[in-house]
């Protein structure tokens, strides 16, 4: 491809081997990889691909957990690794303008001297890009109190699959016309490429308290979550881990996570200094009332950092248990937590699978991680997917949804009919067709594809 010039294209078979995967269990080979450096580069590639009918698959850091960045129908993978500049930090207006390849944490670090940060903090924030966050509408432990990515993006520059460059929104929160920013956030690259993002910045909290509570059973931990929410205290984060996750995490960070607990909660409150102690005491009292076997307050910033490093590295620490994992992302009403967690564990156990649970309990956003070794159990992935299907069906039945933050991608597109009726999907399809009539923007994602979803007889589960 001479559209871009030397050095911006990866086209050897050997090098492209490293663009077959992301953070999920899926793989597929690209036909070429491009590394644009400007919006003009992106548009040039899009025009070329449009002319030749070639799909484009945007890629951020490839930390996605639903196969979003995988070229399942071949085509060009467009990596945004070289569009990683922070273009503007507008302190008075609490805005920043960034390129999509900027790493989430790098933005927060860059604005920290101004006492500001970017709220959405996916556990992968050290690595994932803002383009990926926008595409997946990512959340994180601290989005419980402050909302997910869509609540923190006010403007976008986009390039459609035919090369059209458009600007949506801006620095202001309200805008006339359709809320196309809202439409684009969470569209998983299926409407086009994001080439510039205007985000909201938020003042850092004055202070915080981080409490680690250990329980004998997951049930007790779950009851505690419901009780905290019901009490009216609004923590910044409530995260939960079961024993297996805790083992893997503690081995990785040595933060003093209790290894004998059946379930643990990491609860954080933040805000103005007055009142924090009061909130902490109320939370600790609720934990005790629900049978907490131990309570620990992070005494120093370093201790807090370590506890969070453990929680945020939890998925990746699964490599200590087994080489492969399959993670689901269902959402449920928080009151149903104990009951659904039991069903989750049964779904895995009945298929002879090991399961670890580490998740955003405050949001009711489950992350059951089924761990296995494909080298030793070649059919484990299939069994894990079956268990996943059963888990998601349980979530939908309980009034929840099939994905909280990891997106649908090619991992859950076949499960969409669990949650949406054919007409719902058809309405969504029309939005897709309006932006991408040629169907070249990240094809094979989000919508069920007849060829690949045939094997899933969802009727049986419903």
């Amino acid at each position, binding site marked *: 491809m001479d559209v871009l010039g030397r050095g911006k294209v990866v086209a050897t078979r050997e*090098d492209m*081997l*490293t663009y077959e995967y992301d953070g999920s269990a899926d793989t*597929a080979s690209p036909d070429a990889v491009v590394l644009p450096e400007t919006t003009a580069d992106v548009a040039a590639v899009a025009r070329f691909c449009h002319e030749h009918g070639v799909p484009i698959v945007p890629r951020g850091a490839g930390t996605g957990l639903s196969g979003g960045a995988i070229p399942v129908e071949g085509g060009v993978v467009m990596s945004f690794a070289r569009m*990683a500049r922070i273009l503007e930090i507008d302190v008075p207006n609490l805005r920043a303008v960034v390129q999509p390849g900027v790493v989430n944490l790098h933005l927060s670090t860059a604005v920290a001297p101004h006492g500001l940060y970017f709220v959405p903090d996916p556990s*992968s924030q*050290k*690595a994932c890009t803002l383009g990926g966050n926008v595409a997946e509408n990512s959340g994180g432990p601290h989005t419980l109190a402050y909302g997910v990515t869509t609540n923190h993006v006010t403007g976008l520059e986009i390039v459609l699959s035919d090369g059209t460059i458009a600007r949506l929104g801006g620095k202001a929160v309200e805008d006339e016309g359709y809320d196309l920013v809202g439409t684009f956030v969470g569209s998983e690259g299926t409407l086009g490429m994001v080439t510039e993002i205007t985000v909201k910045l938020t003042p850092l909290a004055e202070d915080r308290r981080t409490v680690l509570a250990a329980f004998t059973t997951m049930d007790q931990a779950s009851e505690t979550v419901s009780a905290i929410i019901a009490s009216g205290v609004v923590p910044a984060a409530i995260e939960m881990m079961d024993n297996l996750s805790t083992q893997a995490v503690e*081995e*990785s960070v040595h933060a003093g996570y209790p290894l004998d607990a059946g379930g643990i909660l990491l609860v954080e409150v933040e805000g103005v200094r007055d009142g924090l102690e009061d909130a902490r005491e109320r939370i600790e009292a609720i934990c005790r009332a629900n049978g907490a076997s131990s309570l620990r307050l992070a005494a120093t910033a370093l201790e807090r950092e370590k506890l969070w490093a453990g929680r945020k590295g939890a998925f990746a620490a699964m490599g200590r248990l087994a080489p492969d994992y399959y993670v689901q992302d269902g959402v449920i009403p928080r009151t149903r937590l104990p009951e659904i967690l039991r069903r989750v564990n049964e779904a895995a156990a009945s298929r002879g699978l090991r399961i670890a649970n580490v998740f955003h309990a405050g949001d009711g956003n489950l992350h059951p991680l089924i761990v296995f070794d494909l080298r030793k159990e070649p059919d484990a992935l299939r069994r894990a997917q079956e268990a996943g299907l059963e888990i998601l069906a349980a979530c939908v039945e309980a009034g929840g949804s099939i994905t909280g933050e990891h997106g649908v991608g090619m991992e859950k597109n076949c499960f969409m009919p669990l949650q949406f009726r054919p007409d719902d999907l058809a309405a969504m399809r029309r939005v897709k067709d309006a932006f991408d009539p040629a169907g070249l923007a990240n094809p094979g994602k989000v919508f069920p594809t007849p060829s690949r979803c045939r094997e899933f007889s969802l009727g049986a589960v419903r």
Partner: protein
Amino acid sequence: MGGLRGGQPPSTVAPLAFLPYPNADAPSEDLIARCVHCGLCLPTCPTFAVLGVEMDSPRGRIRLMKNVWEGRLGADAAAFDDHMNTCLDCRACETACPSGVEFGKLVEGARSQIVAARNASLGERVIRFVALDALLPHRRALAAFARFSYLSKRLGAGAALRAIGTVSHAARRLAGLLELVPDQAPTSEGLPRTVAAHGTRRARAALFGGCVQRAVFGATNAATARVLARNGVEVTVIEDQTCCGALHAHAGERDGARALARRNIAAFERAGADVVVVNAAGCGAALKEYGWLLKDDPAWHDRAARFASTVRDATEYLAEIGLREKPGPVRAKATYDDPCHLLHGQKVREQPRALLAAIPELTVVPLVEADWCCGSAGTYNVTRPELSRQLLERKVGHIKSTGAELVVTANPGCLMQIQSGLRREAPAVRVVHLIDLLDEAYGAS
């Protein structure tokens, strides 16, 4: 998932088309299996930061190693060689990885297979022979080379070579090597065999002298002995020790590394000290990994592991036993740059900082990206001069913005590299080994 739904799984080519790993030093499938391709290590990788491509990231490199096992890539492929050797072996990715992937072992394993699989070109073989077999293991030859280099540098040979370098690749590489020669004159002043502990003896340490340091950093070794002695440690310097083999291992020459390891283990066993103290981070990391290096040698494995467990970096050891004598004041503004093989290779982070904090009146300011490679990385500045230069410039930029007049580090390779970077940019800033600084501080008390 592709397989299940009949999508487009990655193309598989007939396994026999590609050369498999030639021997047991290959990066093992079990170590590779630790990687869950989460990508959390990507932003800590200097080569990924500069080049922005997945095949020059830790995750990409591990995937390529896996692809060789799967028969989708040859161990002799030029691309495999390129990406494994563009890696700095800085191991920043190891520190970042929540899954505990031991990347250093993986990449050194991969390189050993490249060496075994490919007939290196004649020029490459000559350079490897001169550097790895003729110079490093032989102290006198190295000392002679160092003196020659120091002299030729003073005579302006670097500039001359660089001028020739525009036409000759070899001259450019030599000029690069010359740049690295430190400003101080080489001292191969022999250390006495034993330096007695001051006061009651707390332990007996054998000093690992290294090869490069002995030739050009004799003074740092003498300082290490003095600082240890002041703190109640008797120091012996044994004569029959040799090069640690780190550069061999980094270059994939594992048999060479093993031969050196066996000589060192035997020599230090005879010395019978409580600890082996080393002041070069690169050597220390290599010594601590002798057990792994000799894992498949039943006669040596246990001895190697036992030896490895007695090895301490000088800063690690001093912090562990605690300074018995308080250093004198040093009135200066300093900053500390972590050597990769100390921080990432040996996980020694707080100890050097604690020692610095123990020096009265020394102001220590943090250095941005102190945990990043300076581009020295063994012979990297010679094999990948352009990338090495970019990393060095980045490092120098951060150093300049601290306003420090003193850059403290704990590894001769980093010291030389940073010195060569500052020479042009900020000649007033001094680079010093932490142990030399401590020794000076004691001198001042």
